[in-house]
């Protein structure tokens, strides 16, 4: 009896151990529980092959349905619970695809992708990423995380046009393209409007402030906004200048200090540096430090998240907002504004400004014709790649863009005299058309999967009020025609040296924020000296040397 009991106990122990081990084992990934790319038998060959599958003229009805996992910022918004909307159905039928969203947020996309890359769990389409030319871009290619695009893309004319752009071909590795660019502006000069200052004109008038010119004027104005109760509610509840995020400070948000952003530029000594580390940025940061100490810079600026700054401005709690100022972005501010202050006209209350001109001219914010990219899991085989390229090609086309922006032709919009007329319902209170993303949730994130559709069409977008568009167009034309182009050499940005990876943890922006907030009695020159020493010790000096050496060797 005792023996039997002992045997039973042993069996129970073994069973429990087996159960524990089994439950902790690696399960095969499934589409619903894991972001991993759907399995493909041709994993290895996909990496090597660059030719699309033979589906040259396959009609949709003859195509087999294919499941594609897609990841882009907030993609879950495009796939709400319940039935698919009309546009989602149309896309599914047109391309015979079942799209599975794999969500990432604006704040965690990089971390999620890094974790999934390390655990072989990336989705088919890796869309929330902007790392071209950075260390991780080359690492993913070298380690076989992503696949190359087909060499012949003539079947996809819209995509082919983009892939021929010099700022795309500059990043070819082994003569192949590895990503589809997220098209942003037809003319890169229009990036000039992607940074700017929206100022409360009515507050200036109320407080009797003339248009500020010098650094001192700006500090005085922002301080007055914070301390002189510009909204007249008798409370100390307003801020002076609130940047959307701390990076606005260095990324040409205040363009009068020269080029202070992160792109590698040739310095006076011939070395290629990231100007965010340089003397011009130091001069600018001393200005912000003064503004912060005077109370003009929002004391919360270092910890603001997402749209907090925008909401603060829209609610009348700050006088200067630092963010994008193109029509689409101005409309985003206005949309938030009309909810909180419906009686106060937005366009009458604000104006666009550029900060003090410390150098002889303002320097524009500049980027390539695209911002951010889509990559494709190495497990995506040629047949699936073909289907994905078809989808992207359509999204790049006018037909696709209009569907994403305005809905269904004839029902939600029509073309009249070469211009779009919206047929969607108008809100009585705000006078604005119902957003397409409300009518068709599918368009909300899918609308920017291939291209920043809203940015591309914003200067013609009929859903944006003329007052705002005119304000932005006037400013854009002035900036494009008179401001300095920083002349960024994209080939230098594409230089791949291991030293770039080793300095990846250097956080210039964080250090500048700390510099601004350091106590008044600390010596600024010494703080800057210590910061530079820390950057160099953490790999920046080695990266400067390596990038310069490589740039000289390549004759840039």
């Amino acid at each position, binding site marked *: 009896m005792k023996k039997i009991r002992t045997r039973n106990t042993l069996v129970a122990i073994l069973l429990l151990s087996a159960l524990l081990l089994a439950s902790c084992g690696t399960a095969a990934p499934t589409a619903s529980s894991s972001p991993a790319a759907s399995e493909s038998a041709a994993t290895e060959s996909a990496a090597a092959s660059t030719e699309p599958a033979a589906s040259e003229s396959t009609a949709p009805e003859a195509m087999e349905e294919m499941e594609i996992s897609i990841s882009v910022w907030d993609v879950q918004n495009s796939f709400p619970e319940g039935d698919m909307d009309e546009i989602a159905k149309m896309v599914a039928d047109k391309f015979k695809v079942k799209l599975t969203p794999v969500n990432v947020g604006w704040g965690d996309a990089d971390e999620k992708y*890094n974790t999934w890359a*390390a655990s072989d769990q990336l989705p088919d389409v890796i869309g929330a990423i902007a790392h071209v030319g950075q260390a991780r871009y080359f690492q993913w290619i070298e380690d*076989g*995380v992503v696949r190359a695009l087909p060499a012949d893309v003539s079947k996809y004319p819209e995509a082919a046009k983009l892939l021929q752009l010099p700022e795309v071909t500059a990043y070819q590795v082994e003569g192949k393209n590895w990503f589809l660019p997220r098209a942003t502006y037809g003319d890169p000069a229009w990036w000039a409007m992607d940074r700017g200052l929206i100022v409360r004109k009515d507050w200036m008038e109320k407080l009797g402030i003339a248009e500020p010119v010098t650094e001192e004027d700006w500090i005085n104005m922002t301080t007055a906004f914070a301390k002189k109760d510009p909204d007249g509610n008798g409370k100390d509840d307003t801020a002076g200048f609130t940047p959307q995020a701390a990076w606005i400070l260095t990324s040409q948000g205040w363009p009068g200090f020269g080029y202070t952003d992160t792109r590698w530029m040739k310095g006076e000594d011939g070395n290629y540096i990231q100007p965010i580390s340089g003397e011009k940025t130091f001069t600018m940061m001393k200005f912000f430090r003064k503004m912060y100490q005077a109370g003009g810079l929002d004391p919360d600026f*270092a*910890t603001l998240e997402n749209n907090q700054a925008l909401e603060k401005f829209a609610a009348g709690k700050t006088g200067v907002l630092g963010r994008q100022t193109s029509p689409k972005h101005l409309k985003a501010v206005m949309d938030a504004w009309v909810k909180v202050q419906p009686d106060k006209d937005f366009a009458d209350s604000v104006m666009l400004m550029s900060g003090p001109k410390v150098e002889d001219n303002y320097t524009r914010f500049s980027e390539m014709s695209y911002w951010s990219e889509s990559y494709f899991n190495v497990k995506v085989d040629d047949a699936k790649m073909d289907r994905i390229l078809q989808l992207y090609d359509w999204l790049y086309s006018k037909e696709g863009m209009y569907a994403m922006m305005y809905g269904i032709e004839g029902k939600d919009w029509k073309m009249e005299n070469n211009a779009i007329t919206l047929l969607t319902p108008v809100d009585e209170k705000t006078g604005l058309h119902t957003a397409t993303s409300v009518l068709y949730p599918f368009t909300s994130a899918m609308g920017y999967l291939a291209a920043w559709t809203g940015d591309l069409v914003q200067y013609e977008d009929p859903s944006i009020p003329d007052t705002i568009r005119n304000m932005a167009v006037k400013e854009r034309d002035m900036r494009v025609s008179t401001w300095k182009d920083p002349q960024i050499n994209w080939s230098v940005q594409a230089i791949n040296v291991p030293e770039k*990876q080793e300095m*990846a943890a250097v956080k210039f922006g*964080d250090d500048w924020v*700390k510099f601004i907030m350091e106590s008044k009695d600390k010596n600024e020159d010494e703080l800057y000296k210590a910061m530079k020493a820390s950057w160099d010790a953490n790999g920046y000096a080695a990266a400067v040397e390596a990038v310069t050496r490589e740039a000289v060797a390549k004759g840039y």
Partner: protein
Amino acid sequence: MELSRNGAGSLRKNRSGFGRTLRKCVEHRYLLFMLIPVLAYYLIFNYAPMLNLETGGILMAFKQHRLTKPFSEWNWVGLKYFEMMWRKPDFWLAMRNTVFISFARLLFEFPMPIVLSILLNEVARTKLKRFFQTVFTFPNFLSWILIVGIMRDLLQVDGVINGIMTAMSGNQPYNFLANSEVVSNYLMLILSNLFKGIGWGSIIYLASISGIDPSLYEAATVDGANRWHNIIHITWPGIRSTAIVLLILQCGNILNGGFDQIFNLVNGVNRGIIETIDVYIYRYAFQQSMNQSFAAASGLFKAVINFALLMAANGLARRMGEDNLF
């Protein structure tokens, strides 16, 4: 002859020793049975990943990690990543922060659950005692994300605390969440950790206190002892051995410093003050450079130091005649 007799005796002794152990194991088989999940946890989640050569395991620190290539194709790099770690000022900054924060925790956080358990023990009404115990224990079940959310509402520049402070003093609001002052940051860490963990930490002491023979208190009261005397001469000696064991275990955690809490509170401004090794490793592995091998080297270094500290604390406790782990 003598030798063989001794040898046989020793063998018999060993056999009987082994037999006795076996007998004890059989006798306490149900207790041992309960140990299996814990052992399985450590084997599966701590030792198996270290020894898993498919993903690199502990050897990742000595090879160059490649994302999709098999371990056999990774290049051996020797101590390259340890040298890199040695050279990086931000590693030493994180190391310094970890040690300082852990000592601050030992000094200010460690005694608090003991104090709370003694205070709770002094509450005479059972219902009231249970109420307080529940109130203090509840925050342990909240995630750090939630607690940091509450902290943001309370501590941000236009938050509740600043509202009260500025109304009372007329001074400028203070940015508790983003500043590089040591005292303010440490206070924030310690107080929030106490809020979350003090009740949970006191449970083990309350269990020890409940094991103290009530007749000791009765006898002491008859002899004229007051509450303070009872605490000093009966309660504290009753829980001292538990406190020593927990202190030793805490020493083995000195380089841990608390990941979740700090990960949620760290930002560009306070990074130099509160970033600990664990957050630093995560940053290198997943946030910025994706340098898994470097992160593995830093993690291995940390584990070795932690183990050494644990052994040292255990040895010290043994020498001082206190209870120890092994």
